[in-house]
């Protein structure tokens, strides 16, 4: 089956949070608290057991550099579109970055690797999903994820995260967040197609002088073997709260088992040495 995924083009995200709402509605995700976080328009905070889409709002001083010209949106001149305004508020002002974060559905998924029950599995769409009737709430996947995506729902005891709307995919439907996105910042489709589209979009932005635009998670040779849900970002990943160079922890597992074998042998050696001498 074709690998399906998300391409989140943050250059045209307007921060409406329709994705957050649609995800909650469709997937029946409990509320994540009525909070005032004091972090721009972000009162959601981070991805978690009860937050499967999270819109980040970054307010960054422009610095001294001249603002880039307004990038064209979808091939047309952006004019005074909200997205262009968001990008370009003048050299003295603040630059707004908005980005809808989601589970990356890694090619090499640490959560799936470390799951002891097999509750986390890879679907026929190459996405990573928790089988809630199997999960026993051991919590191992939580610190294993290099993006801090999956978490335990305390009221429930099990772990939860984005399923890339597995149920909708099975019915040939678009995931709720992508369906609800009014600017096509969230695009859903076969990963190959999305990557082609993203490369084209990156070219358009670069040509328009947005030199800081780059793709995050579109490289099969990165530490997690590429994301099933990748991004076009306008600043360093860490600015959005994303790890700059994530690596699947299990890549080092053979070395860990070898170290454990060495330590186990050392333990046997120490016990043997202790018992060998006449008492």
């Amino acid at each position: 089956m074709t690998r399906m995924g998300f391409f989140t083009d943050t250059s045209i995200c307007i921060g409406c949070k329709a994705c957050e709402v649609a995800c909650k509605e469709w997937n029946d995700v409990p509320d994540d608290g009525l909070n005032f976080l004091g972090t721009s328009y972000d009162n959601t905070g981070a991805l978690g057991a009860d937050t499967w889409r999270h819109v980040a709002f970054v307010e960054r001083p422009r610095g001294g550099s001249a603002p880039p010209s307004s990038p064209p949106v979808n091939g047309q001149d952006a004019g005074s579109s909200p997205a262009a305004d968001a990008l370009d508020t003048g050299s003295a002002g603040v630059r707004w970055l908005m980005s809808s974060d989601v589970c990356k559905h890694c090619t090499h998924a640490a959560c799936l690797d470390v799951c002891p029950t097999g509750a986390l599995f890879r679907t026929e769409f190459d996405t990573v999903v928790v089988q809630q009737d199997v999960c026993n709430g051991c919590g191992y996947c939580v610190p294993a994820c290099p993006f801090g995506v999956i978490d335990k729902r305390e009221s429930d005891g099990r772990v939860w995260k984005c399923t890339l709307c597995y149920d909708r995919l099975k019915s040939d439907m678009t995931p709720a967040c992508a369906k609800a996105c009014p600017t096509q910042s969230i695009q859903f489709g076969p990963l190959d197609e999305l990557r082609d589209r993203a490369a084209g979009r990156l070219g358009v932005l670069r040509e328009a002088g947005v030199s800081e635009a780059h793709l995050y998670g579109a490289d099969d040779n990165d530490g997690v073997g590429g994301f099933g849900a990748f991004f076009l970002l306008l600043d360093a990943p860490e600015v959005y709260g994303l790890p700059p160079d994530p690596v699947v922890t299990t890549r080092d597992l053979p070395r860990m088992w070898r170290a454990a074998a060495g330590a186990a042998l050392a333990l046997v050696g120490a016990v043997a040495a202790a018992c060998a001498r006449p008492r």
Partner: protein
Amino acid sequence: MRPAPVTDETATGYYGNPVLKAPVWKPVIALYFFTGGVAGASSTLGFAALLAGNRRLARSALLASAAGIAVSGPLLVVDLGRPARFLNMLRVAKPTSPMSVGSWILSAFAPASMLAAGSAVTGRLPRTGRVAAGAAGVLGPAVATYTAVLVADTAIPAWHDAHRELPYLFAASAAASAAGTALALTPVPDAGPARRLAVMGAALELAAFRAMERRLGEVAGPYKEGRAGTLARAAEACTAAGAALGLVAGRRRPVAVAAGALLCAGSLITRHSVFRAGFESAADPAATIGPQRSRRAAG
């Protein structure tokens, strides 16, 4: 709770929020690292003592092993979000999951350890008891070290980046605590191997912790300051005092008991320090972002 000053604003990421999720494990898991360590190393010590003909030492070590593993099981089950589903741990066998590997090791080790202890205490089924003691003795080092791989196989810098040293730290800590337990439970004339193992285990435990701190470099912070750092220093003091006491005056029974208690305390606190350090490391965005940025800059 926000980390120390940083060189630029993006080093702490998005409003200083953690990049990673902190583990959801409760401190009973740190306690399990200790009880599992005592159980694992004690079974090896017990089997070696059995082979050497030291029956009294064998008996106390096999008993400690069974007691340790009897406590461990419930500790692991109560920490699950859905304790009733604990048997799902044996639904699959996955070498990529240290918890799966550990579950299978424990389900072979626990009955062997219990059988060996039962036979040693009652004197019944001596041949079966010996076979069981052998099985538990061989599996013991795996029980004592797989937990190190379990914490290292996460994205948390203070755990993951210590993956070469943690198994040695856990093995040594297990040896010291098993030797301490045996020291306290065994009459002095038969406790010679326990005294020697105590010194070796304690020395390696202290050395492994230092080596781990050196390896971690810029992400070693939690082991040096804060609550995990305080625990680390306390563990070091207990372990060193226990080993010294056992070495100098371990032939006097009350002193041997005190030395054993100190070694066990040192091991228990070491596990809590490592456990705690993981939470602090996960909460610090700079610990996640900094090394990754350097790595990327280096190409």
